[in-house]
C-alpha cells in the first residue's frame, strides 16, 4: 500500500533511493543537499536500507566511490549541489564514458562567487555535455517519481542519470508526497543486471587508453544511447503511469494546442507559471506552457511538434551562459531553426541566484512577451533592479 507523507524534496529523494534498494551510497554533504544523505545514513544505520554508506572527503571521491561500486555491478546513489558538482566534473565525464548506470541527485544551486545557496540551474547545465541524462523536477512528488524512473532509464541504457531540483523551493519545502509500495516499486524496477561488470575472476582494465581507432565509436554509441533514451522515456514514463497513476514524458505541455504564446520552463518555477497562465486563460488569452522534464537527451522532435504551432515562444531560463544567454533558449532556438514556419523565440533570463520568480514577475513577463519586438527578444534580463540597467561596468 502506498502512503502519503508531507515531506521535503530532499527526503523525497531519500525515500526514492530506499525504494530503489540502492546498495552503495557515497556522498559529501553540501547545502542544500545534506538532508538527502542524512536521512539515507539514518536509514542505513537503522537497517531499513541495506546499503553500504561510504563517508568520503570530497565530492570527487564520492563520485569516484560510486563509480567503483557500479563497476562491480551494484546499484548506487550519490547527491550533490553547485560547487560539489563542479568538483565532481572530471568524474561526471568519466562515469558517462564508462557507461555506468549511476543515479545522482543535484539540488540546483547558484555557482559561487558570490557565495550562494539559492536556486539557479547553472550547476547542472554546466554538465550538459558530459553524457549524463538530466531530469528536471517541478514538485516533491516528481522528485521521488523521477528518482525511481531514473534508475530504470540508467540501467536500461547503461548511462548515468541526474535528477535535478531547485534549492529550498523544493529541497527544503514540504509537500504531500505519495510514497509507493515497495512491492510495486520492485515490480517496476527489478534488481540491477549490470552489463559492464568487473569480475575478479576475469580481471580487466576499465576505461584504459583508447586509440583514435576506437574512441570515436564509443562516443557514437553514447549518442545512440541518448537517442534511445527519447523513446524509452515515453515508454517507461507511461509504464510508471500505469503502475502509479502519474505519467511522465520528456515534456509536459499545458494548453499548447491553441496557444499564441508558449512559455517554456523547467523546474519549480513551472508551478508558478501554471498559476499565472490559468488566470490568463480565464481572461481569454491563449497562452500555453511547455515544461522541460528531460533536458539530456534534448527532445528535439517533441519540442518541434509542440512549439511550431505557436506565434511566439518565451523561454524562461533560471540560468545564464555568460556571453550567450539562457541555455534552454539556445537549445530551443537550435531545435527550431531549420523549420520554415518557426515561431519567434524570446529568451528571458530570470531568478538567478535564487531571486524569487513571483506571480507578479511572470505576469509582467507575459505582458512583455506579447508586446516586445521579436528582434529585441534574443536575451532579456527579467527582474533586474532598475538602477543597474543603465550602468556599464
Amino acid at each position, binding site marked *: 500500500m502506498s502512503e502519503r507523507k508531507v515531506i521535503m524534496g530532499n527526503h523525497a529523494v531519500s525515500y526514492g533511493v530506499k525504494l530503489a534498494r540502492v546498495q552503495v551510497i557515497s556522498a559529501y554533504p553540501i547545502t542544500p543537499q545534506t538532508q538527502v544523505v542524512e536521512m539515507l545514513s539514518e536509514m542505513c544505520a537503522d537497517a531499513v536500507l541495506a546499503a553500504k554508506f561510504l563517508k568520503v572527503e570530497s565530492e570527487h571521491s564520492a563520485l569516484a566511490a560510486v563509480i567503483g561500486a557500479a563497476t562491480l555491478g551494484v546499484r548506487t546513489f550519490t547527491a550533490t549541489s553547485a560547487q560539489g558538482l563542479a568538483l565532481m566534473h572530471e568524474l561526471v565525464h568519466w562515469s558517462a564514458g564508462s557507461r555506468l548506470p549511476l543515479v545522482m541527485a543535484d539540488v540546483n544551486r547558484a555557482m559561487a562567487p558570490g557565495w550562494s545557496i539559492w536556486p539557479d540551474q547553472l550547476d547542472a547545465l554546466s554538465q550538459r555535455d558530459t553524457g549524463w541524462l538530466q531530469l528536471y523536477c517541478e514538485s516533491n512528488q516528481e522528485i521521488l517519481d523521477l528518482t525511481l524512473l531514473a534508475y530504470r532509464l540508467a540501467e536500461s541504457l547503461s548511462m548515468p542519470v541526474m535528477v535535478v531540483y531547485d534549492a529550498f523551493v523544493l529541497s527544503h519545502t514540504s509537500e504531500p508526497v505519495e510514497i509507493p509500495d515497495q512491492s510495486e516499486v520492485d515490480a517496476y524496477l527489478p534488481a540491477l543486471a549490470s552489463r*559492464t561488470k568487473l569480475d575478479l575472476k576475469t*580481471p580487466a*582494465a576499465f*576505461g*584504459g587508453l583508447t586509440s583514435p581507432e576506437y574512441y570515436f565509436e*564509443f562516443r557514437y554509441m553514447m549518442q545512440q544511447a541518448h537517442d534511445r533514451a527519447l523513446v524509452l522515456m515515453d515508454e517507461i514514463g507511461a509504464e510508471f503511469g500505469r503502475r502509479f497513476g502519474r505519467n511522465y514524458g520528456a515534456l509536459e505541455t499545458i494548453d499548447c494546442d491553441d496557444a499564441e504564446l508558449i512559455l517554456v520552463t523547467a523546474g519549480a518555477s513551472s508551478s508558478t507559471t501554471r498559476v499565472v497562465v490559468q488566470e490568463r486563460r480565464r481572461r481569454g488569452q491563449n497562452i500555453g506552457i511547455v515544461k522541460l522534464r528531460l533536458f539530456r537527451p534534448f527532445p528535439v522532435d517533441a519540442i518541434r511538434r509542440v512549439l511550431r504551432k505557436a506565434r511566439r515562444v518565451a523561454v524562461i531560463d533560471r540560468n545564464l551562459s555568460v556571453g550567450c544567454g539562457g541555455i534552454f533558449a539556445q537549445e530551443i532556438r537550435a531545435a527550431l531553426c531549420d523549420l520554415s514556419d518557426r515561431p519567434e523565440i524570446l529568451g528571458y533570463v530570470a531568478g538567478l541566484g535564487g531571486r524569487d520568480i513571483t506571480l507578479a514577475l511572470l505576469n509582467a513577463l507575459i505582458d512583455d512577451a506579447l508586446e516586445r519586438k521579436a528582434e529585441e527578444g534574443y536575451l532579456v534580463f527579467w527582474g533586474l533592479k532598475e538602477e543597474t540597467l543603465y550602468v556599464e561596468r
Partner: protein
Amino acid sequence: MSKPNQTAQPGKTATTGAPVRTIEPAVAATGGLAADDEPTAESHAVIGDGSNVSVPAPNKSAAERQGGSERSEPIRFGPSFPLPIAPISQGTTAFIHTGSWRYLKPRYVNKVPPCRVGCPAAMPVERVMTLVEGGKYEAAIREILDENPFPGICGRVCYHPCETACNRGQYDSPLAIQLTERFIADETADLDLQLEGGPRQKESVAIVGGGPAGMAAAYFLLRLGYQVTLFEAENRLGGILRYGIPPYRLPRAILDQELNRVVALGLKVQSGVRVGRDIPWSALRGFNARMLAPGLGKSRLLGIAGEDAQNAESGLEFLRRFNTEGPRHIGKKLVVIGGGNTAIDVVRTAIRAGCGDVNLLYRRTRAEMPALAGEVDEADREGVAMSFLSLPIRFIVDTANRVVAVEAVKMKLSEPDESNRPRPIPIPGSEWIIETDHVVVAVGESEHASAMPDDAALCREQAFPLIQSGDQGEFYVGGDLSNDTLTVVSAIASGKRAAIAIDSDLRGRLADWKAIRVADGGLSFTRYLGKETPGHNRSIAIDRINPDYFKKQERARTPRLSVRVRVAGFEEVNLGYAQSAAEVEAKRCFHCGVCTACDNCYIFCPDAAVEKKPDNTFSIRYEYCKGCGICATECPRGALDMVADEEGINDE
C-alpha cells in the same frame, strides 16, 4: 621502446568482417582492447550493448607477459566491431616498463633504531619489543642476553639512555624500555636457558674485579668458550652492585640470580683476594690474557677542616658498611654532601635506617644534580631536606674529634665551567651552621692506587683501552677505569669490549670495530658472532616517522611502594608493571627504521611494483617502479629510502 608499426598487416578477417590490426607493444598501450585474435572461450569477458559481445583476452597469461623482457611478438587487437559499450581490456600492461620514467627509487633499508644506538650495551630494543608484543618472552630474554648479561639489574638501576634516545619521546613520551627489560627478566627468571657457549677454547683469561664490568667480560668470554678465573677483593661478587647500590633499588635475590647465571657458565671465582696485596701481580702471568676492572675505589674529599673526624665518612664507605653489616646507629641527625647517585643512595638508606633528620647539601641547584632525577624525586618524597646552592666550608669538631656541626656557605651560579655546568660561587657573608650527629661526603670517586701494578698506565691508542706495565705487560681493561660515563651499563659495555678484544687477539681475527658498533652507539656481541649483519649501519630521526600511523598514548607508569611502607624497610620501591602493560607498551614502539611487514608499501604502490615474498619481506620490481615515493612516504617507520636512481640497489 619501438615506434608504432606503420605497416599494419592485412590480418585475418573476423566474423564481423572487420580487419585485425597488428600493432607493436608501444602502441598496444593505446588500445583499450588489447587482445589476441584467437581467444580461448574461458577468457571472454561478456560485455556488450544490447547483445552479448565478447572481447577476446590474450592467450598468454598476464604472468607470462610480466618480467621485463621485451616482447618479440606484436600485440594484436581483437576484432574492431562490434565494440563493447565502454573501453575495457583484458590485455596486460606488463610490457610497459614504467620504471624507465624514474629518477628516484625506493629502497628497503633497515636502520638502527635510536634506542639501540643510545644503549651502551647495544640492546636490540626494537626486536625485543616485537617479541614482547607477541608474548615471546623467552626469545626476548635470549635477544637481550646476547648483548647484556644483566637485564634484571639494568631493568632496575640503569640510567636508561635508550629512553632518552627514543624517538617516541619527541612525539608523546618515550617507551618504558627499562620497565620492559625488567619485566622480561623477571618473567623469565625461572627458565633454564642453557645459554650456548662457543667452541671450547684452551686459552685461559684472568679478570681482576667482580663488578659489572668484570662480570660482563667473564660472561662474554665464557660464552666464547674460554677458561675464565675472576679475582675479587671482597668476599662476594658484584662490586658496586652489591656494596654500593642499596637493596631497595636492587633486591639481592635479583643480583645473585644474574651473577649466578655467569658463574654457572663455568666461572672460577677467587673471592677475598686482592691482587697486588694477597697475591702478587706476577701470579697472573700464566693466563693467556688478563683484564683489569677494579672500579674507582677511592672517594674524593672536600679538602676542608674536620673531614678526618670519627663520625665523618665517604658515601661509598657508608654504603659498603651498610650493605655488609646492616643498619647501624648514626644518631638523630645526618648531613650528606653531594649531588650524585651515591649521595642519594646514602640519604635514602639513612632514612630507612631510622635517621629522622637527613639533610643533603649540594653546591648547585636541583637541575644540575648528576643523580637520576627520579631518584632525587623519591628522596624528596621520603622526607630528605635538600639545601641547594650550599657548600660546606668546615666541619666543626669537638674534643673527641667528632663532628658536631657543619658550617656552610650559600652559593650563586655563574658562567659555565669546563663541565659545561654553571660554576657555583660563594656569596660572602652568607655562612650558616647546621648541627649534626654524622657526616657523609659523597662528592665522587677516583681510582685506587693499589688497583693496578705500580708502573701501569692507561693507554687509549688502540680501538680498545689497555693498561700497560713495564713489569707485568699488557692488561685489557674495563669498568670505570676506562669509561667516561661511570654507569653500570657502561661498565657492562666495557666488559663486552674487553671480551671481544681478547677473543680477537687470541683467535688472531681482526674485529671490524666499525661494523660491530651499532651506528655510532655501542658494540654488538651478536654482530661480532656474525649472527647479525651490520646492514646499513645508521640510525633514524623522528622526521622519518609518519605520525599519521601512530595514536598518541602516554607511556606506562611505574607503580611504586607507598612512602609510608617503603621507609619502614628496604623493600624494593619500584614494583615493575604487569604483563598487560608490557604488551601495551610494546605496541607503542615505532619500530624506527625497521620493516615490520605492515604491508603499507605493498598496498599503496600505484604501480603494483611492490612484491611480497613468502617470508614476509618485500622487493621492488624496478622495471615498473616510477619512483613516485608513495611507498616511502606511507611507510610508518622510515624503512624505505628514496635514493637517486644512479645508485645501485645494494650499494653503501
